[in-house]
Protein backbone atom coordinates (compact mmCIF):
# COMPACT_ATOMS: atom_id res chain seq x y z
CA UNK A 1 0.00 0.00 0.00
CA UNK A 2 2.74 2.40 1.00
CA UNK A 3 4.67 1.49 -2.16
CA UNK A 4 1.81 2.88 -4.26
CA UNK A 5 1.05 5.89 -2.09
CA UNK A 6 1.88 9.35 -3.43
CA UNK A 7 4.36 11.54 -1.60
CA UNK A 8 2.71 14.33 0.39
CA UNK A 9 4.30 16.97 -1.84
CA UNK A 10 2.75 15.34 -4.92
CA UNK A 11 -0.82 15.40 -3.67
CA UNK A 12 -3.14 17.36 -5.94
CA UNK A 13 -6.90 16.99 -6.26
CA UNK A 14 -7.67 15.07 -9.46
CA UNK A 15 -7.99 17.08 -12.68
CA UNK A 16 -11.65 16.21 -13.21
CA UNK A 17 -12.39 17.42 -9.75
CA UNK A 18 -10.84 20.82 -10.16
CA UNK A 19 -12.13 21.43 -13.64
CA UNK A 20 -15.74 20.34 -13.49
CA UNK A 21 -17.14 22.81 -10.96
CA UNK A 22 -15.17 25.69 -12.53
CA UNK A 23 -16.18 24.81 -16.08
CA UNK A 24 -19.88 24.62 -15.35
CA UNK A 25 -20.31 27.37 -12.77
CA UNK A 26 -21.12 30.14 -15.30
CA UNK A 27 -23.41 27.85 -17.30
CA UNK A 28 -25.30 26.82 -14.17
CA UNK A 29 -26.16 30.42 -13.43
CA UNK A 30 -27.66 30.78 -16.90
CA UNK A 31 -29.90 27.70 -16.64
CA UNK A 32 -33.23 27.21 -14.87
CA UNK A 33 -32.96 25.82 -11.36
CA UNK A 34 -34.93 22.65 -12.09
CA UNK A 35 -36.27 20.65 -14.99
CA UNK A 36 -34.76 18.57 -17.78
CA UNK A 37 -32.21 19.78 -20.32
CA UNK A 38 -30.40 18.01 -23.14
CA UNK A 39 -26.75 17.15 -23.63
CA UNK A 40 -24.34 16.68 -26.51
CA UNK A 41 -20.68 15.84 -26.21
CA UNK A 42 -17.80 14.04 -27.78
CA UNK A 43 -18.48 10.60 -29.25
CA UNK A 44 -17.20 7.38 -27.70
CA UNK A 45 -17.66 5.41 -24.49
CA UNK A 46 -14.90 7.32 -22.70
CA UNK A 47 -16.89 10.53 -23.02
CA UNK A 48 -19.69 9.11 -20.86
CA UNK A 49 -17.59 10.10 -17.85
CA UNK A 50 -17.67 13.71 -19.06
CA UNK A 51 -21.44 13.47 -19.35
CA UNK A 52 -21.88 12.26 -15.76
CA UNK A 53 -19.48 14.88 -14.45
CA UNK A 54 -21.66 17.47 -16.20
CA UNK A 55 -24.80 15.91 -14.68
CA UNK A 56 -23.14 15.95 -11.26
CA UNK A 57 -22.17 19.62 -11.58
CA UNK A 58 -25.60 20.71 -12.87
CA UNK A 59 -27.81 18.72 -10.43
CA UNK A 60 -30.65 19.12 -9.46
CA UNK A 61 -31.24 19.76 -13.15
CA UNK A 62 -31.73 16.47 -14.96
CA UNK A 63 -29.37 16.32 -17.94
CA UNK A 64 -30.54 13.79 -20.51
CA UNK A 65 -27.97 12.57 -23.04
CA UNK A 66 -30.07 13.72 -25.99
CA UNK A 67 -30.34 16.87 -28.16
CA UNK A 68 -34.16 16.71 -28.09
CA UNK A 69 -34.69 19.46 -25.53
CA UNK A 70 -35.25 23.18 -25.80
CA UNK A 71 -31.98 23.86 -23.96
CA UNK A 72 -29.00 21.63 -24.71
CA UNK A 73 -25.62 21.68 -22.98
CA UNK A 74 -22.57 21.09 -25.15
CA UNK A 75 -19.55 19.63 -23.37
CA UNK A 76 -16.34 19.28 -25.35
CA UNK A 77 -13.51 18.58 -22.96
CA UNK A 78 -10.85 17.96 -25.63
CA UNK A 79 -10.19 21.39 -27.01
CA UNK A 80 -8.22 19.96 -29.95
CA UNK A 81 -11.04 17.77 -31.20
CA UNK A 82 -13.22 19.11 -33.99
CA UNK A 83 -16.74 19.72 -32.74
CA UNK A 84 -19.37 17.88 -34.71
CA UNK A 85 -22.23 19.90 -36.20
CA UNK A 86 -25.65 19.20 -34.71
CA UNK A 87 -28.73 19.54 -36.80
CA UNK A 88 -31.38 21.88 -35.33
CA UNK A 89 -29.07 23.14 -32.58
CA UNK A 90 -28.25 26.82 -32.52
CA UNK A 91 -25.43 28.11 -30.39
CA UNK A 92 -26.91 30.39 -27.74
CA UNK A 93 -23.73 31.07 -25.78
CA UNK A 94 -20.13 29.87 -25.52
CA UNK A 95 -18.96 29.78 -21.88
CA UNK A 96 -15.39 28.86 -22.77
CA UNK A 97 -13.41 25.73 -21.86
CA UNK A 98 -15.57 23.67 -24.22
CA UNK A 99 -18.84 24.45 -22.45
CA UNK A 100 -21.62 25.60 -24.78
CA UNK A 101 -25.32 26.25 -24.52
CA UNK A 102 -27.50 25.45 -27.52
CA UNK A 103 -31.14 26.07 -28.16
CA UNK A 104 -33.32 23.66 -30.08
CA UNK A 105 -36.45 25.32 -31.38
CA UNK A 106 -37.75 22.06 -32.82
CA UNK A 107 -37.76 20.30 -29.48
CA UNK A 108 -40.91 19.70 -27.52
Amino acid at each position, binding site marked *: MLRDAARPSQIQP*SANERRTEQRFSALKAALPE*RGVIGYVGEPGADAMGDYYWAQYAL*APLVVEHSPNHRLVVGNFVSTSAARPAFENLHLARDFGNGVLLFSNEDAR
Partner: protein
Amino acid sequence: MSVSLAPLLCFASGFALVSLGWSRREPLAIDLLLRASLSVGFGFGIFSVEYFVCRAFSRTNLLAVDLAVLALLAAALFFRSRFLSARSQETKTQGLDERPVWFRRTVAAAFVFALFAAIYLAIQRVRIYPSGDGWDAFAIWNLHARFLFLGGSQWRDGFTALLPGSHPDYPLLLPAAIAHFWSYFAHDDPRIPSAIGFAFTFATAGVLFAALAFLRGRVAAMIGTIVLLSTPSFIEQGTAQYADVPLSFFFLACVVLLCLGGEERERSSSGLLALAGVAAAFAAWTKNEGLLFLCALAFARVAILARRRTRTALASEISTIPLLAVLVPALLLILYYKHFVGVPGDLFSSPSASLHRLLDSARYWAVIKWYVKGFFRFGHWFLLPVSLLLLALALTTSRDISLARQPGSRTAVFAMALTLGGYFLVFLITPYDIYWHLRFSLLRLFLQVWPATVFLVLSNVRTTSAPNA
Protein backbone atom coordinates in the same frame (compact mmCIF):
# COMPACT_ATOMS: atom_id res chain seq x y z
CA MET B 1 -27.73 24.54 12.65
CA SER B 2 -24.49 23.80 14.35
CA VAL B 3 -22.03 21.84 12.23
CA SER B 4 -20.70 19.86 15.18
CA LEU B 5 -24.23 18.84 16.17
CA ALA B 6 -24.64 16.54 13.15
CA PRO B 7 -21.90 13.98 13.93
CA LEU B 8 -22.84 14.14 17.61
CA LEU B 9 -26.52 13.38 16.98
CA CYS B 10 -25.63 10.73 14.41
CA PHE B 11 -23.26 8.88 16.74
CA ALA B 12 -25.51 9.28 19.79
CA SER B 13 -28.49 7.82 17.90
CA GLY B 14 -26.38 4.87 16.78
CA PHE B 15 -24.98 4.34 20.26
CA ALA B 16 -28.43 4.43 21.85
CA LEU B 17 -29.78 1.92 19.33
CA VAL B 18 -26.83 -0.45 19.80
CA SER B 19 -27.03 -0.14 23.60
CA LEU B 20 -30.74 -1.02 23.48
CA GLY B 21 -29.96 -4.54 22.33
CA TRP B 22 -26.65 -4.91 24.15
CA SER B 23 -25.52 -7.16 26.96
CA ARG B 24 -22.50 -5.65 28.67
CA ARG B 25 -19.29 -7.62 28.48
CA GLU B 26 -15.84 -7.55 30.00
CA PRO B 27 -13.31 -6.07 29.49
CA LEU B 28 -15.06 -2.72 29.35
CA ALA B 29 -12.58 -1.13 26.93
CA ILE B 30 -13.27 -3.76 24.27
CA ASP B 31 -16.99 -3.57 25.01
CA LEU B 32 -16.92 0.18 24.40
CA LEU B 33 -14.82 -0.18 21.25
CA LEU B 34 -17.27 -2.67 19.76
CA ARG B 35 -20.30 -0.63 20.70
CA ALA B 36 -18.72 2.60 19.43
CA SER B 37 -17.64 1.00 16.13
CA LEU B 38 -21.10 -0.46 15.57
CA SER B 39 -22.64 2.91 16.49
CA VAL B 40 -20.84 4.65 13.62
CA GLY B 41 -22.59 2.60 10.93
CA PHE B 42 -25.89 2.33 12.80
CA GLY B 43 -25.86 6.11 13.29
CA PHE B 44 -25.43 6.69 9.55
CA GLY B 45 -28.26 4.21 8.97
CA ILE B 46 -30.60 6.05 11.33
CA PHE B 47 -29.63 9.42 9.83
CA SER B 48 -30.32 8.08 6.37
CA VAL B 49 -33.77 6.70 7.19
CA GLU B 50 -34.72 9.90 9.04
CA TYR B 51 -33.74 12.05 6.09
CA PHE B 52 -35.52 9.88 3.54
CA VAL B 53 -38.73 9.73 5.59
CA CYS B 54 -38.65 13.53 6.06
CA ARG B 55 -38.14 13.95 2.30
CA ALA B 56 -40.85 11.47 1.39
CA PHE B 57 -43.41 13.11 3.68
CA SER B 58 -42.28 16.71 3.04
CA ARG B 59 -41.13 17.37 6.60
CA THR B 60 -38.58 20.17 6.79
CA ASN B 61 -37.68 20.40 10.47
CA LEU B 62 -34.92 17.85 10.43
CA LEU B 63 -33.40 18.85 13.76
CA ALA B 64 -36.70 18.27 15.56
CA VAL B 65 -37.00 14.82 14.00
CA ASP B 66 -33.39 13.95 14.92
CA LEU B 67 -33.92 15.07 18.51
CA ALA B 68 -37.25 13.24 18.76
CA VAL B 69 -35.75 9.96 17.53
CA LEU B 70 -32.79 10.31 19.89
CA ALA B 71 -35.13 11.09 22.79
CA LEU B 72 -37.23 8.02 21.99
CA LEU B 73 -34.15 5.81 21.86
CA ALA B 74 -32.84 7.30 25.10
CA ALA B 75 -36.20 6.78 26.81
CA ALA B 76 -36.30 3.15 25.66
CA LEU B 77 -32.76 2.70 26.90
CA PHE B 78 -33.65 4.20 30.28
CA PHE B 79 -36.69 1.94 30.57
CA ARG B 80 -34.59 -1.09 29.68
CA SER B 81 -31.83 -0.32 32.17
CA ARG B 82 -34.36 0.56 34.90
CA PHE B 83 -36.70 -2.40 34.60
CA LEU B 84 -34.79 -5.07 32.69
CA SER B 85 -31.40 -4.72 34.32
CA ALA B 86 -31.11 -8.44 34.99
CA ARG B 87 -30.90 -9.08 31.27
CA SER B 88 -28.07 -6.65 30.75
CA GLN B 89 -25.69 -8.16 33.26
CA GLU B 90 -24.49 -10.87 30.92
CA THR B 91 -20.70 -10.76 30.93
CA LYS B 92 -18.01 -12.93 29.52
CA THR B 93 -14.55 -13.40 30.92
CA GLN B 94 -11.58 -13.58 28.64
CA GLY B 95 -8.50 -15.59 29.42
CA LEU B 96 -5.00 -14.22 29.08
CA ASP B 97 -3.12 -14.90 25.89
CA GLU B 98 -0.52 -17.56 26.58
CA ARG B 99 1.55 -17.26 23.44
CA PRO B 100 5.24 -16.30 23.79
CA VAL B 101 5.96 -12.67 24.55
CA TRP B 102 8.10 -12.20 21.42
CA PHE B 103 5.20 -13.42 19.28
CA ARG B 104 2.68 -11.09 20.90
CA ARG B 105 5.05 -8.14 20.57
CA THR B 106 5.74 -8.87 16.92
CA VAL B 107 2.04 -9.08 16.14
CA ALA B 108 1.40 -5.87 18.12
CA ALA B 109 4.14 -4.03 16.20
CA ALA B 110 2.76 -5.26 12.86
CA PHE B 111 -0.74 -4.22 13.96
CA VAL B 112 0.37 -0.68 14.84
CA PHE B 113 2.29 -0.41 11.57
CA ALA B 114 -0.68 -1.66 9.50
CA LEU B 115 -3.06 0.70 11.30
CA PHE B 116 -0.94 3.79 10.72
CA ALA B 117 -0.14 2.81 7.12
CA ALA B 118 -3.87 2.40 6.44
CA ILE B 119 -4.72 5.75 8.05
CA TYR B 120 -1.91 7.45 6.11
CA LEU B 121 -3.04 5.97 2.79
CA ALA B 122 -6.70 6.76 3.48
CA ILE B 123 -5.96 10.41 4.29
CA GLN B 124 -3.86 10.73 1.14
CA ARG B 125 -6.64 9.29 -1.01
CA VAL B 126 -9.25 11.56 0.56
CA ARG B 127 -7.06 14.55 -0.32
CA ILE B 128 -6.42 13.37 -3.89
CA TYR B 129 -10.03 12.35 -4.62
CA PRO B 130 -12.26 14.75 -2.65
CA SER B 131 -15.31 13.70 -4.71
CA GLY B 132 -14.46 10.03 -4.91
CA ASP B 133 -12.33 7.82 -7.10
CA GLY B 134 -14.32 6.30 -9.92
CA TRP B 135 -17.56 6.40 -11.82
CA ASP B 136 -19.98 5.21 -9.14
CA ALA B 137 -19.04 7.97 -6.68
CA PHE B 138 -20.07 10.91 -8.86
CA ALA B 139 -22.51 9.16 -11.23
CA ILE B 140 -24.52 7.30 -8.60
CA TRP B 141 -24.06 7.86 -4.87
CA ASN B 142 -23.06 11.52 -4.64
CA LEU B 143 -25.35 12.42 -7.54
CA HIS B 144 -28.31 10.90 -5.68
CA ALA B 145 -27.26 12.81 -2.57
CA ARG B 146 -27.26 16.02 -4.60
CA PHE B 147 -30.75 15.36 -5.95
CA LEU B 148 -32.02 14.68 -2.42
CA PHE B 149 -30.40 17.79 -0.98
CA LEU B 150 -30.68 20.32 -3.82
CA GLY B 151 -33.89 19.09 -5.43
CA GLY B 152 -36.30 20.86 -3.09
CA SER B 153 -39.85 19.62 -3.41
CA GLN B 154 -38.97 18.05 -6.78
CA TRP B 155 -36.19 15.82 -5.46
CA ARG B 156 -37.88 12.77 -7.01
CA ASP B 157 -37.05 14.13 -10.49
CA GLY B 158 -33.48 12.92 -10.10
CA PHE B 159 -34.59 9.30 -9.83
CA THR B 160 -35.63 8.93 -13.41
CA ALA B 161 -35.20 6.53 -16.30
CA LEU B 162 -33.66 9.45 -18.23
CA LEU B 163 -30.47 8.76 -16.24
CA PRO B 164 -30.07 4.97 -16.55
CA GLY B 165 -26.35 5.06 -15.76
CA SER B 166 -27.09 6.59 -12.36
CA HIS B 167 -29.02 3.43 -11.41
CA PRO B 168 -32.10 5.14 -9.96
CA ASP B 169 -33.18 1.83 -8.38
CA TYR B 170 -30.21 1.72 -5.98
CA PRO B 171 -31.13 2.13 -2.28
CA LEU B 172 -30.36 5.35 -0.45
CA LEU B 173 -28.50 4.72 2.80
CA LEU B 174 -25.35 6.46 1.62
CA PRO B 175 -26.94 9.32 -0.41
CA ALA B 176 -29.53 10.14 2.26
CA ALA B 177 -26.93 10.08 5.06
CA ILE B 178 -24.71 12.44 3.03
CA ALA B 179 -27.68 14.73 2.30
CA HIS B 180 -28.62 14.73 6.00
CA PHE B 181 -25.16 16.01 6.94
CA TRP B 182 -25.26 18.56 4.13
CA SER B 183 -28.50 19.91 5.63
CA TYR B 184 -26.63 20.73 8.84
CA PHE B 185 -23.77 22.27 6.87
CA ALA B 186 -26.28 24.20 4.68
CA HIS B 187 -24.31 23.35 1.53
CA ASP B 188 -23.13 20.28 -0.38
CA ASP B 189 -19.68 20.14 1.16
CA PRO B 190 -17.60 17.52 -0.74
CA ARG B 191 -15.76 16.61 2.48
CA ILE B 192 -18.87 14.90 3.87
CA PRO B 193 -18.89 11.86 1.52
CA SER B 194 -15.13 11.53 2.12
CA ALA B 195 -15.58 11.63 5.88
CA ILE B 196 -18.41 9.09 5.79
CA GLY B 197 -16.32 6.72 3.66
CA PHE B 198 -13.37 7.14 6.03
CA ALA B 199 -15.58 6.51 9.07
CA PHE B 200 -17.11 3.35 7.59
CA THR B 201 -13.65 2.00 6.67
CA PHE B 202 -12.17 2.29 10.14
CA ALA B 203 -15.39 1.42 11.95
CA THR B 204 -15.32 -1.89 10.04
CA ALA B 205 -11.80 -2.49 11.32
CA GLY B 206 -12.97 -1.55 14.83
CA VAL B 207 -15.84 -4.04 14.77
CA LEU B 208 -13.55 -6.80 13.51
CA PHE B 209 -10.89 -6.12 16.14
CA ALA B 210 -13.26 -5.88 19.09
CA ALA B 211 -15.39 -8.88 18.12
CA LEU B 212 -12.35 -11.11 17.65
CA ALA B 213 -10.86 -9.81 20.91
CA PHE B 214 -13.99 -11.01 22.70
CA LEU B 215 -14.15 -14.39 21.08
CA ARG B 216 -10.50 -15.30 20.46
CA GLY B 217 -8.28 -12.85 22.35
CA ARG B 218 -6.26 -9.83 21.34
CA VAL B 219 -3.62 -11.62 19.26
CA ALA B 220 -6.27 -13.09 16.97
CA ALA B 221 -7.96 -9.66 16.91
CA MET B 222 -4.75 -7.96 15.83
CA ILE B 223 -4.03 -10.60 13.17
CA GLY B 224 -7.55 -10.25 11.76
CA THR B 225 -7.29 -6.47 11.67
CA ILE B 226 -3.85 -6.65 10.01
CA VAL B 227 -5.35 -8.91 7.32
CA LEU B 228 -8.16 -6.42 6.68
CA LEU B 229 -6.16 -3.19 6.81
CA SER B 230 -3.35 -4.56 4.65
CA THR B 231 -5.85 -5.36 1.92
CA PRO B 232 -5.14 -2.41 -0.42
CA SER B 233 -8.49 -2.60 -2.21
CA PHE B 234 -10.30 -2.27 1.12
CA ILE B 235 -8.68 1.11 1.80
CA GLU B 236 -9.04 2.13 -1.86
CA GLN B 237 -12.75 1.31 -1.97
CA GLY B 238 -13.37 2.73 1.49
CA THR B 239 -12.11 6.11 0.38
CA ALA B 240 -13.52 5.92 -3.16
CA GLN B 241 -16.99 6.93 -1.90
CA TYR B 242 -18.55 3.74 -3.22
CA ALA B 243 -21.10 1.80 -1.17
CA ASP B 244 -19.21 -1.50 -1.04
CA VAL B 245 -17.29 -0.88 2.18
CA PRO B 246 -20.40 0.46 4.00
CA LEU B 247 -22.15 -2.72 2.85
CA SER B 248 -19.22 -4.82 4.11
CA PHE B 249 -19.59 -3.03 7.46
CA PHE B 250 -23.22 -4.12 7.79
CA PHE B 251 -22.45 -7.68 6.64
CA LEU B 252 -19.71 -7.90 9.28
CA ALA B 253 -21.89 -6.28 11.97
CA CYS B 254 -24.70 -8.73 11.28
CA VAL B 255 -22.38 -11.75 11.35
CA VAL B 256 -20.66 -10.59 14.56
CA LEU B 257 -23.98 -9.94 16.31
CA LEU B 258 -25.32 -13.33 15.24
CA CYS B 259 -22.23 -15.03 16.65
CA LEU B 260 -22.27 -13.02 19.89
CA GLY B 261 -26.01 -13.67 20.19
CA GLY B 262 -25.33 -17.37 19.83
CA GLU B 263 -22.87 -17.20 22.71
CA GLU B 264 -25.37 -15.63 25.07
CA ARG B 265 -27.91 -17.50 27.12
CA GLU B 266 -31.01 -17.84 24.99
CA ARG B 267 -32.96 -15.41 27.21
CA SER B 268 -30.63 -12.48 26.64
CA SER B 269 -29.66 -13.18 23.03
CA SER B 270 -32.80 -11.66 21.53
CA GLY B 271 -31.40 -8.11 21.82
CA LEU B 272 -28.24 -9.02 19.93
CA LEU B 273 -30.22 -10.94 17.32
CA ALA B 274 -32.52 -7.93 16.87
CA LEU B 275 -29.42 -5.79 16.30
CA ALA B 276 -28.22 -8.37 13.74
CA GLY B 277 -31.55 -7.89 12.00
CA VAL B 278 -31.08 -4.11 12.07
CA ALA B 279 -27.62 -4.54 10.50
CA ALA B 280 -29.12 -6.72 7.75
CA ALA B 281 -31.87 -4.14 7.22
CA PHE B 282 -29.32 -1.35 6.85
CA ALA B 283 -27.37 -3.56 4.42
CA ALA B 284 -30.52 -3.87 2.30
CA TRP B 285 -30.93 -0.08 2.45
CA THR B 286 -27.31 0.35 1.27
CA LYS B 287 -27.19 -1.74 -1.92
CA ASN B 288 -29.29 -4.27 -3.79
CA GLU B 289 -26.73 -6.91 -2.79
CA GLY B 290 -27.75 -6.15 0.80
CA LEU B 291 -31.34 -7.00 -0.09
CA LEU B 292 -30.10 -10.36 -1.33
CA PHE B 293 -28.21 -10.81 1.96
CA LEU B 294 -31.32 -9.94 3.98
CA CYS B 295 -33.34 -12.61 2.17
CA ALA B 296 -30.45 -15.09 2.55
CA LEU B 297 -30.26 -14.35 6.27
CA ALA B 298 -34.00 -14.87 6.85
CA PHE B 299 -33.93 -18.11 4.86
CA ALA B 300 -30.78 -19.39 6.57
CA ARG B 301 -32.10 -18.65 10.06
CA VAL B 302 -35.43 -20.35 9.46
CA ALA B 303 -33.79 -23.33 7.70
CA ILE B 304 -31.26 -23.93 10.49
CA LEU B 305 -33.80 -23.66 13.28
CA ALA B 306 -36.22 -25.91 11.38
CA ARG B 307 -33.63 -28.69 11.41
CA ARG B 308 -33.11 -28.56 15.18
CA ARG B 309 -35.05 -31.03 17.25
CA THR B 310 -33.65 -30.25 20.69
CA ARG B 311 -35.33 -28.77 23.75
CA THR B 312 -33.50 -25.48 23.25
CA ALA B 313 -34.86 -25.14 19.71
CA LEU B 314 -38.07 -23.51 20.90
CA ALA B 315 -36.12 -20.89 22.87
CA SER B 316 -33.95 -20.19 19.80
CA GLU B 317 -37.02 -19.80 17.68
CA ILE B 318 -38.47 -17.30 20.15
CA SER B 319 -35.22 -15.32 20.21
CA THR B 320 -35.34 -15.27 16.38
CA ILE B 321 -38.63 -13.36 16.37
CA PRO B 322 -36.98 -9.93 17.02
CA LEU B 323 -34.43 -10.64 14.28
CA LEU B 324 -37.13 -11.33 11.72
CA ALA B 325 -39.45 -8.62 13.09
CA VAL B 326 -37.00 -5.78 12.43
CA LEU B 327 -36.68 -6.91 8.83
CA VAL B 328 -40.34 -6.09 8.16
CA PRO B 329 -40.17 -2.26 8.46
CA ALA B 330 -36.94 -2.32 6.46
CA LEU B 331 -38.61 -4.23 3.67
CA LEU B 332 -41.57 -1.84 3.76
CA LEU B 333 -39.22 1.16 3.49
CA ILE B 334 -37.38 -0.41 0.55
CA LEU B 335 -40.63 -1.38 -1.15
CA TYR B 336 -41.90 2.19 -0.74
CA TYR B 337 -38.70 3.55 -2.26
CA LYS B 338 -38.64 1.07 -5.13
CA HIS B 339 -42.32 1.58 -5.92
CA PHE B 340 -42.83 5.31 -5.42
CA VAL B 341 -39.40 6.84 -6.05
CA GLY B 342 -36.91 4.61 -7.86
CA VAL B 343 -37.43 3.11 -11.29
CA PRO B 344 -37.24 -0.64 -11.97
CA GLY B 345 -33.74 -2.05 -12.39
CA ASP B 346 -32.64 -3.74 -15.58
CA LEU B 347 -31.47 -7.04 -14.09
CA PHE B 348 -34.83 -8.81 -14.11
CA SER B 349 -36.40 -6.86 -16.98
CA SER B 350 -36.78 -9.89 -19.26
CA PRO B 351 -37.50 -13.21 -17.48
CA SER B 352 -37.45 -15.24 -20.69
CA ALA B 353 -34.03 -13.91 -21.69
CA SER B 354 -32.79 -14.58 -18.13
CA LEU B 355 -33.96 -18.18 -18.38
CA HIS B 356 -32.22 -18.57 -21.71
CA ARG B 357 -28.96 -17.30 -20.21
CA LEU B 358 -29.41 -19.60 -17.24
CA LEU B 359 -29.32 -22.60 -19.58
CA ASP B 360 -26.08 -21.54 -21.25
CA SER B 361 -23.28 -23.72 -19.83
CA ALA B 362 -20.55 -21.42 -21.22
CA ARG B 363 -21.72 -18.71 -18.83
CA TYR B 364 -21.29 -21.02 -15.83
CA TRP B 365 -17.72 -21.78 -16.91
CA ALA B 366 -16.98 -18.07 -17.41
CA VAL B 367 -18.26 -17.13 -13.95
CA ILE B 368 -16.41 -20.02 -12.26
CA LYS B 369 -13.15 -18.96 -13.92
CA TRP B 370 -13.64 -15.37 -12.82
CA TYR B 371 -14.57 -16.45 -9.28
CA VAL B 372 -11.31 -18.42 -9.02
CA LYS B 373 -9.23 -15.57 -10.47
CA GLY B 374 -11.05 -13.03 -8.34
CA PHE B 375 -10.36 -14.99 -5.17
CA PHE B 376 -6.64 -14.35 -5.65
CA ARG B 377 -6.86 -10.83 -7.01
CA PHE B 378 -9.67 -8.91 -5.32
CA GLY B 379 -7.46 -7.47 -2.59
CA HIS B 380 -4.92 -5.90 -5.00
CA TRP B 381 -2.22 -7.48 -2.85
CA PHE B 382 1.46 -7.22 -3.70
CA LEU B 383 2.92 -10.62 -4.70
CA LEU B 384 1.08 -12.91 -2.27
CA PRO B 385 -2.74 -13.13 -2.10
CA VAL B 386 -3.72 -12.85 1.56
CA SER B 387 -6.97 -14.67 0.71
CA LEU B 388 -4.82 -17.73 0.01
CA LEU B 389 -3.04 -17.35 3.36
CA LEU B 390 -6.38 -17.10 5.14
CA LEU B 391 -7.60 -20.24 3.38
CA ALA B 392 -4.40 -22.03 4.41
CA LEU B 393 -4.91 -20.86 7.99
CA ALA B 394 -8.48 -22.15 7.98
CA LEU B 395 -7.44 -25.53 6.59
CA THR B 396 -4.28 -26.19 8.60
CA THR B 397 -4.99 -24.91 12.13
CA SER B 398 -7.07 -26.71 14.69
CA ARG B 399 -10.59 -25.37 14.99
CA ASP B 400 -12.66 -24.57 18.02
CA ILE B 401 -16.02 -25.88 16.90
CA SER B 402 -17.94 -24.65 19.93
CA LEU B 403 -18.75 -21.37 18.18
CA ALA B 404 -19.30 -23.00 14.80
CA ARG B 405 -21.97 -25.21 16.34
CA GLN B 406 -23.99 -22.26 17.60
CA PRO B 407 -27.05 -21.50 15.45
CA GLY B 408 -25.93 -17.87 15.17
CA SER B 409 -22.59 -18.78 13.63
CA ARG B 410 -24.15 -21.40 11.39
CA THR B 411 -26.77 -18.90 10.24
CA ALA B 412 -24.01 -16.40 9.42
CA VAL B 413 -21.97 -18.90 7.39
CA PHE B 414 -25.05 -20.15 5.55
CA ALA B 415 -26.27 -16.61 4.80
CA MET B 416 -22.85 -15.55 3.46
CA ALA B 417 -22.66 -18.68 1.29
CA LEU B 418 -26.16 -18.05 -0.05
CA THR B 419 -25.22 -14.45 -0.79
CA LEU B 420 -22.15 -15.51 -2.77
CA GLY B 421 -24.34 -18.04 -4.58
CA GLY B 422 -26.81 -15.27 -5.33
CA TYR B 423 -24.02 -13.15 -6.83
CA PHE B 424 -23.12 -16.14 -9.02
CA LEU B 425 -26.72 -16.40 -10.23
CA VAL B 426 -26.88 -12.68 -11.00
CA PHE B 427 -23.79 -12.96 -13.22
CA LEU B 428 -25.42 -15.87 -15.05
CA ILE B 429 -28.54 -13.89 -15.92
CA THR B 430 -27.05 -10.42 -16.32
CA PRO B 431 -28.41 -8.58 -19.39
CA TYR B 432 -25.03 -6.83 -19.75
CA ASP B 433 -22.01 -8.35 -21.44
CA ILE B 434 -20.99 -10.97 -18.90
CA TYR B 435 -17.26 -10.21 -19.09
CA TRP B 436 -17.84 -6.49 -18.75
CA HIS B 437 -20.07 -7.08 -15.73
CA LEU B 438 -17.60 -9.48 -14.11
CA ARG B 439 -14.69 -7.16 -14.79
CA PHE B 440 -16.28 -4.12 -13.20
CA SER B 441 -18.06 -5.63 -10.22
CA LEU B 442 -16.79 -9.07 -9.14
CA LEU B 443 -13.79 -7.85 -7.17
CA ARG B 444 -15.95 -5.36 -5.28
CA LEU B 445 -18.49 -8.08 -4.50
CA PHE B 446 -15.71 -10.21 -3.00
CA LEU B 447 -14.59 -7.22 -0.99
CA GLN B 448 -18.11 -6.83 0.44
CA VAL B 449 -17.87 -10.24 2.13
CA TRP B 450 -14.16 -10.02 2.99
CA PRO B 451 -14.35 -8.52 6.54
CA ALA B 452 -17.07 -11.02 7.55
CA THR B 453 -15.03 -13.87 6.06
CA VAL B 454 -11.90 -12.83 7.98
CA PHE B 455 -14.01 -12.76 11.15
CA LEU B 456 -15.62 -16.15 10.54
CA VAL B 457 -12.28 -17.83 9.82
CA LEU B 458 -10.40 -16.35 12.78
CA SER B 459 -13.26 -16.76 15.22
CA ASN B 460 -13.19 -20.49 14.59
CA VAL B 461 -9.42 -20.93 14.93
CA ARG B 462 -8.44 -22.39 18.30
CA THR B 463 -6.26 -20.07 20.36
CA THR B 464 -4.73 -20.60 23.75
CA SER B 465 -6.47 -17.50 25.02
CA ALA B 466 -9.97 -18.46 24.00
CA PRO B 467 -12.28 -19.86 26.59
CA ASN B 468 -13.69 -23.09 25.30
CA ALA B 469 -17.32 -22.63 25.87
